[in-house]
């Protein structure tokens, strides 16, 4: 079942002679429960595509359907509700609020959602933090933990309202290799439990965990690669295939 469907998405920046087309009539379908990555060189439009698919940025033309709702037709409040309840985001830099500790940052979307009472929210947050190994840091300020720990907190925040899709924009881009691997394992685990994961990356190793990879160049999808489910397969082979494709496309 399609969870996100983008039809002829076009996104342009700038005015007049400086106008540049970042996404050029892209059509893309993502199925529920899939683990998808979007790859491309710097400036290819991969992050812009992710922001367009999540409704965080508007498109100049085309449409994006999220669980059947066309995002451009939703009012800001409805779009926010949808983003809060059905989507989760993890960015390259951990976007946590400076003046809150880790736990408060994580529960922020759930407190606004009001589906659970405050005690239940805290219990859920602590369980998520426990599952990613940062429970003992819950009262720490964001300046008192490492980048990897912050990224795990950001994943917990993305999961707090049990979304159907997790979007990640280079979530391991600022991390060392061991932290990077841990984050990827967490995302794989989330995906295993049925949450769709869409990642933007330029790292073949990260991309190789996906079942489907879209390659972007000059605002267009120039290639799409399908891989077997990650578990039990040879990681090096997967990375090799992705790297070869990238070489071939000149990314």
């Amino acid at each position, binding site marked *: 079942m399609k969870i996100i469907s983008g039809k002829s998405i076009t996104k342009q920046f700038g005015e007049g002679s400086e106008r540049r087309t970042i996404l050029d009539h892209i059509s893309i379908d993502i199925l529920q429960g899939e683990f998808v990555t979007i790859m491309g060189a710097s400036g290819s439009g991969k992050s812009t595509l992710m922001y367009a698919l999540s409704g965080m940025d508007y498109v100049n033309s085309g449409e994006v359907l999220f669980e059947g709702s066309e995002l451009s037709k939703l009012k800001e*409040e409805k779009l926010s*509700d949808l983003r809060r309840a059905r989507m989760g985001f993890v960015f390259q830099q951990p*976007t946590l609020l400076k003046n809150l500790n880790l736990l408060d940052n994580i*529960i922020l979307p759930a*407190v*606004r959602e009001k589906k659970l009472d405050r*005690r239940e929210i805290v219990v859920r947050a602590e369980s998520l933090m426990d599952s990613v190994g940062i429970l003992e840091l819950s009262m720490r300020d964001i300046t008192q933990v490492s980048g990897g720990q912050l990224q795990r907190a950001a994943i917990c925040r993305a999961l707090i*309202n049990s979304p159907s899709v997790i979007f990640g924009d280079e979530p391991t881009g600022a991390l060392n290799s061991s932290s990077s691997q841990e984050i990827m394992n967490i995302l794989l685990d989330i995906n295993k439990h049925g949450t769709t994961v869409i990642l933007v990356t330029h790292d073949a190793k990260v991309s190789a965990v996906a079942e489907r990879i879209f390659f972007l160049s000059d605002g267009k999808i120039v290639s799409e690669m399908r891989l077997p489910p990650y578990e039990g397969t040879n990681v090096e082979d997967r990375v090799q295939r992705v790297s070869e494709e990238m070489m071939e496309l000149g990314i």
Partner: protein
Amino acid sequence: MYSRIIINDLKNSKLISVTTFLFVAASAMLLALAGMLFINLTGAIDGLMMVAKTPHFMQMHSGEVDLERLEIFSESNDAIQAFQVMEFVNFESWDMVVEGLPFDGGIQDNGFIKQGRRFDFLVNLEGEIIEPKNGEIYVPLSYMREGSIKEGESVALYGSVFTVAGFLRDSQMNSPLSSSKRFLVSDSDFETIKSMGKMEYLIEFRLQDLDDLRTFETEYIAAGLESNGPTLTYRLFRVINGLSDGLMIAVIVLVSFLVVVITFLCIRFTLLARMEDDYREIGVLKAVGFHNSDIIRLFLAKYTVITFLGCVFGYLASLMVKDSLLEDIKLFMGTYHQTGVEVFLGIISAVVIFVIVLAYVYHVLRRIRTVSVTESIRFGAVQEHSRMYRSFLMSKSRVLNSNVYLAIKDVLGRKKLYWTMMIILLISICIMTLPINLLSTISSDRFVSYMGIGKSDFRVDIQQTADIQQKADAIASVMENDSDILRYVVLTARSYVVLGDDGRDGRLRIEAGDHSVFPIMYSEGRMPTEPGDIALSAMNAEELGKRVGDKITVIIGGEAVQLTVCGLYSDITNGGRTAKAAFSDFDDTVMWSVISAEVQAGSNLGSIVSRYAETFSYAKVSNIEEYVQMTFGSTIVAIRRASNVGILVAFFISFLITLLFVKMLVSKDRYSIAIMKSIGYNSKDVCFQFIVRILLVAIAGIGLGILVSITMGEHIAGLMISSFGATSFSFEINGIFTYLVCPALMLIAVYTATLISSQSVKSINIATCIKE
């Protein structure tokens, strides 16, 4: 390079630049105005008093005058430069008919006079000494202002008909605070009508040296010369002439001070916010070898341009506004001709603002020196927080809505930033409430009790007439049997010799009687209740060097009696030199008697006052309310205007500053806002957070501001009111305005501005901000 940086910076922060410009311009305008008005006022007063040759010492007296004795005294005293006795003929308002209608002369003691021979000249609006022709009458300017008489109208007085030939400036009695007004007629007309009114003498002296005035006063009293009326001096005339406009200048200086403070706060806030934003860039600039002074110069350049433009604009604006504010001064005192001095003072005021604003900007910018290169590049601006702040957690709070929580957390976490905003709102509410409470204090019927007049319904003054004691007794006996009178009290003043500590004797006018019936306010101590008590007016206490508890020796019935100073009070009656005691004495001649009375509830005060005035024509009967209105009427109007302007200014400042503050906050917080939006908070949520933040700060600022206004404000207002002679007083708080209307107006201003400014949250694009 600088000009490009400045132009780009101005383009990128239009609202901040415009607001800073406006505040600098307002500061420069107000200070330049205060300077120009001050020099005009003092210059015009000096000019008028010089042309008019105002007496240095004037003794009012009624009854017989021994001219020969006065002349001998004058010739034998080397301190005297010139001496004259002027005849001043009082008439009742109803004696004068203007264009067929009785003249409305209010409660003033109106009289006519002929031009001074040697000095004390009455001048026309061109500042020339008037020489009235027969059949002409010149009218005091205050009546032109009130519109009671117009030029060219016919005036009938005691059977003679005059034409109003013009209006006169009177260097002694121009001010509404002066209770007498002099009309000028020609010498021969004066001789024709002088026998019809009540004659009063103005015994006037000009001295060789004004510094000898005190010694001269003592010598005059010691010589036992005519002195049954008030004594007035050159300094008092100068103060009375300058009072109303001086008060306006004081208000302008006060407001300009507040605006300068607001300008500083505004600059501090915008600069700190900007520096916080540019923290990393400052670090980078340092890392690549820029000196602190180079970076400071970059920031300073923009403020130099804004401050310079603001000061120039402010100065030009002051030139445009000054004429309307100078209207009264020019009308009553004449024009000050030293335009060069005026221009110079205005420019100096603007330069002062320029220098202090830039000095302040530099002072704030010195923080750049403390920016550490490595820390700034790694973390940006990091703030330390208190334990209380850290323990205020959303996870621990059961009830707080997430938006309210985030708003409170933000305010607690950035106290320095919000403190600036709070102080501005605190000052704004003070600007709103101070004049209102000053107005309610001066308008209150209790206010006269701070001025040496007990709160009664009306008072009857008998002075400068024969048999005062008998006349007072006669009035008292009528009151005793008058069913309209609820209660009354007779106070009788006699002149006593007081033995000075330095061996020099002086004279003291002591009002004896029951002072508890219509008590006045004492700035220190209490009213006299025992025969050994004496209370002194502030002026007398200062001259005698006495304080509460000190002893004073007075000759009563030929014997030296020691009295204890039990209280001090302010007095605007009888030249301010009075004393009050509770002893009984029937020996010495009575100088004046005051009978204060309160009427029965429901009685018609106006008709009772008229009845007494008609029955006892030798006495001056004043309705206290009317007295207050006449004495303080123009001040009340000025303060009412100031309070209206205050409300507008404070509303505008609160609105503008909040608009700017929130706009800056939104711009500063755009990354956090984008994060919130990305996790499902909508623009309404964020706007609501801004409203809660600002309202929290506003409520704190308004609350503290009201507290400051009713406590410290009382002292500030006290300074102004003391210029009227009241040394101490307490605020009559206008509760509805202070606690309800003003806070509500401020909250409306702040709320509306926040609502408007926070709308820019909607345009924050998550993708753009997060990718930055």
